[in-house]
């Protein structure tokens, strides 16, 4: 059985890599797309199998899994755990939907080979726990967007400056951590560079401009796939959360909180749909960091739930906007567009995914947001209030954008703008997952709670009891006893 587990996990990285190779040697765009769809679909099945196999086994048994690369290197590198198990199929789904919904109008400018390569890197990143290899993968992952920007003839200075800073700080911080050795509280010289690197990668203000720039200049699909899985949050969980002192995390959490409110306000005033999407995403992803940095079981569980719902809902939201862009070009938010009559399904999907991203009741994000707010209030009441304010502003921004794009006038077009069959399947898949996750949230929340417990346990072990978090210490035994296996 271990061999099967080994195969699923390794295959999930190898298949998209192989796909990238095949697609890069296929000159015909239509055939490239078909290959890419087949490979991303296969990857989704494989990651789904890996997750399913993880679910049916005892979680403890997984820490002993050995993979080909791990065996080759001589230590555990790629390990599926409670945190990464459901994230892998979610990422694979996002890649599949993006390639599936790429229309002919976008096919020439969208790199399918690059997308498959990025998928392999991202899946490897999310399976990796070894700090140095994780840093290497994160650094490798920054290359495809830069290549795309250059291929499109756009300036890459802003992107390269930020990503260079990100990688440099990661290396600096990890070097200090290694130099200080394990089993003790790390100094700020080690923690602050790592934490700043996370803030840069996650687009926390004032380091967020590279994300708006990326969305301005890169293909919407590529930009979406680069930011939506929240690789920065993953790096935070693996590299910073286990070793950072409580007060540092909370003070950085306040910076994330300020970003959440700031970006929600900025989303309200944008005149370009891509920039609006970008700020909406920044606001929501900052909320995930707020939850991670609250460092309580409730806040952490909420953050992990919001992470899942955000990847799905903002992924769906971005794909809806991409579908609209492929019909109308860049979307302006200065005037009413009146597209509802042409694309009622896209309008519905836009509203549904947008509301899910702000935690509307009945959607995937609702319970996660509730938990996040509860966890934040547990830490500081004002933090909880700010989270609610950000969510309220985001809700207004989503409905405002909906009204501007789909209503207010009647769009006249001499060609049909209706959605294609592939897009319809994608819309239905996203809508179904958002609603099912919203109406039956318990499995997802319980799984995220177990992941949160696991992370806090690792944190307590690594800091050797240095961190005086009363609620963590109180909660852990109870959660261990009652948490489902």
């Amino acid at each position: 059985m271990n061999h099967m587990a080994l195969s699923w996990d390794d295959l999930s990285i190898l298949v998209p890599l192989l796909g990238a190779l095949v697609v890069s040697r296929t000159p015909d765009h239509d055939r490239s797309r078909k290959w890419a769809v087949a490979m991303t679909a296969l990857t989704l099945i494989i990651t789904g199998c890996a997750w399913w196999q993880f679910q049916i086994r005892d979680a403890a048994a997984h820490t002993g899994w050995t993979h080909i690369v791990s065996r080759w290197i001589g230590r555990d590198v790629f390990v599926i755990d409670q945190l990464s198990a459901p994230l892998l199929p979610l990422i694979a789904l996002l890649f599949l939907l993006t390639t599936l919904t790429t229309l002919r109008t976008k096919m020439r400018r969208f790199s399918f080979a690059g997308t498959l390569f990025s998928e392999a890197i991202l899946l490897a990143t999310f399976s990796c726990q070894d700090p140095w290899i994780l840093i290497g993968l994160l650094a490798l992952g920054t290359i495809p967007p830069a290549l795309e920007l250059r291929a499109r003839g756009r300036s890459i200075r802003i992107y390269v400056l930020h990503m260079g800073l990100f990688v440099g700080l990661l290396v600096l911080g990890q070097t200090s951590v290694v130099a200080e050795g394990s089993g003790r509280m790390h100094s700020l010289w080690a923690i602050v560079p790592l934490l700043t690197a996370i803030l840069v990668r996650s687009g926390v203000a004032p380091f967020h401009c590279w994300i708006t720039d990326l969305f301005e200049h890169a293909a919407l699909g590529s930009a979406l796939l680069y930011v939506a899985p929240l690789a920065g949050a993953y790096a935070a969980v693996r590299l910073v959360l286990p070793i950072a002192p409580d007060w540092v995390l909370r003070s950085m959490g306040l910076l994330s909180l300020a970003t959440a409110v700031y970006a929600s306000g900025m989303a309200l005033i944008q005149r370009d749909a891509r920039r609006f999407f970008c700020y909406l995403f920044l606001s929501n992803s900052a909320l995930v960091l707020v939850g991670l940095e609250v460092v309580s079981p409730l806040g952490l569980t909420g953050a992990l739930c919001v992470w899942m719902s955000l990847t799905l809902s903002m992924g769906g939201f971005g794909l809806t906007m991409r579908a609209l862009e492929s019909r109308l070009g860049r979307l302006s938010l200065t005037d009413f567009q009146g597209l509802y009559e042409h694309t009622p399904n896209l309008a519905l999907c836009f509203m549904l995914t947008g509301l899910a991203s702000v935690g509307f009741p009945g959607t995937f994000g609702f319970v996660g947001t509730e938990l996040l707010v509860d966890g934040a209030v547990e830490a500081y009441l004002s933090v909880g209030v700010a989270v609610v304010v950000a969510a309220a502003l985001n809700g207004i921004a989503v409905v405002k954008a909906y009204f501007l794009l789909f209503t207010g006038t009647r769009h006249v077009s001499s060609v049909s703008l209706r959605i294609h069959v592939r897009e319809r399947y994608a819309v239905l898949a996203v809508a179904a997952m958002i609603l099912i996750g919203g109406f039956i949230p318990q499995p997802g929340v319980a799984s995220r709670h177990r992941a949160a417990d696991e992370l806090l346990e690792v944190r307590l072990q690594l800091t050797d009891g240095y961190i005086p978090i009363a609620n963590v210490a109180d909660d852990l035994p109870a959660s261990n006893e009652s948490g489902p296996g």
Partner: protein
Amino acid sequence: MFDYELLIRVLGLTVVAAPCFLLVILGAASLVGHPLGERTIARLGHTSIAVGLLAAVTMLGMMLSLDTRRLAIELGSWVAIPHYHFSIKFEFDRLSVPFVILSFVLCGTIGAFANRYMHRERGFNRFFVLYALFLTGMVVTSLAGTIETLFTGWEMVGLSSAMLVAFFQERPAPVRNGLRVWSVYRISDAALLIASVVLHHVTGEGDFDKLLGTGPWPEGIAEISSHEAILVGALLLVAAAGKSALVPFSGWLPRAMEGPTPSSAVFYGALSVHLGAFLLLRVGPILELSPWLAGAVIVAGLVTAIFAAVAGRVQTDIKSALSFASLTQVGIIVAEIGCGLRYVALVHILGHACLRTLQFLRAPTLLTDYRTLENAIGDHLPQDAGPWVRWVPDALRLRLYRLALERGHLDTWLADGLVAPIINLFESCDALERRWTDFLAGRQSRESERMRPVSESLEEHL
């Protein structure tokens, strides 16, 4: 022996499931791109409302015959992890049962009216999807046994109301008004969510039993301190003010009349506008803990009633006049709640909602009705200004008239005093960001500002 408990549980679930069923069917059909026909929608609507109403009335009958003042139906924990659980619980008591019956009766009436009124309207299916969402939200809010459940229904009502205001979506004015309504509702929702989280934090539970005592409504005693009550009560008052259009949020109510007449009638004349008052009735024990809080509720109610009475006198269209008349009564109801007259307030809500629904539904035929009346009496209808005109100086009357015509400048105050500074602040930040990214990029960084949206791009690629 007859199992009453099982019957009560089945009836209770039927009350909630009937509107949910309608929403799921209509929503799923729309989502897959195959909306149902008008006749099918009408039948489904009638059936689900009839079933829900019958179950609610039977429930009321059983409660009266068994002399039970409160029944709780727990569906268990929807989400349960250590130190947190989100339970779904519905309460049937003297407040919720009349309110849910009122919701079914008025929605049923409006549904029957709308089937003809909206016949062959382009958005017939969309109207009924939103109608089903609204009805579900009303039923869930009315029967909520936990504050989280109440919040769920509250948000559903808010979304459906805003979308219905913007129902005639090919014109910009309804859409702008819909956005205005949604913005006010989001402020209200945020206040309710914060209140719910604070309550959850203070008591460790979201159940109304724990928050408001175990006594049947209206006899509960809240188990929080008076300081906590002031904080929570103030938040709940803001939530209620947003939903019930109390001052200073009154501006959205006449704007909401842009929607189709059936939705105006049921949402803003009858049910939705009373939801804030319902919330205050539900959390009445919290209001009792602080005289200051009760005083604030009375002041909010009276100020709203006076404002609406004055503004309503100068309206020139019947739906706006009715909306202000409605608001006057809502203000009085809120003041009654602040005075602790809960049964009076409940009866006032029930009577007012029914009367106002009738008036709204007759609104499209107002001129015909006037003509019929004038023909019957053989003269014009009397236009008496009232005795108070003699006692008020002309200058004051003129100022009052202008104030009423401008609807108390409330919208202007909110726009200039609250919204404009926020927008200006963020626009300044946006300008700063542009300069920063231009500096980093070494050239103009915002492609979006140079590009014009291409409206016919697909044709170019064909």
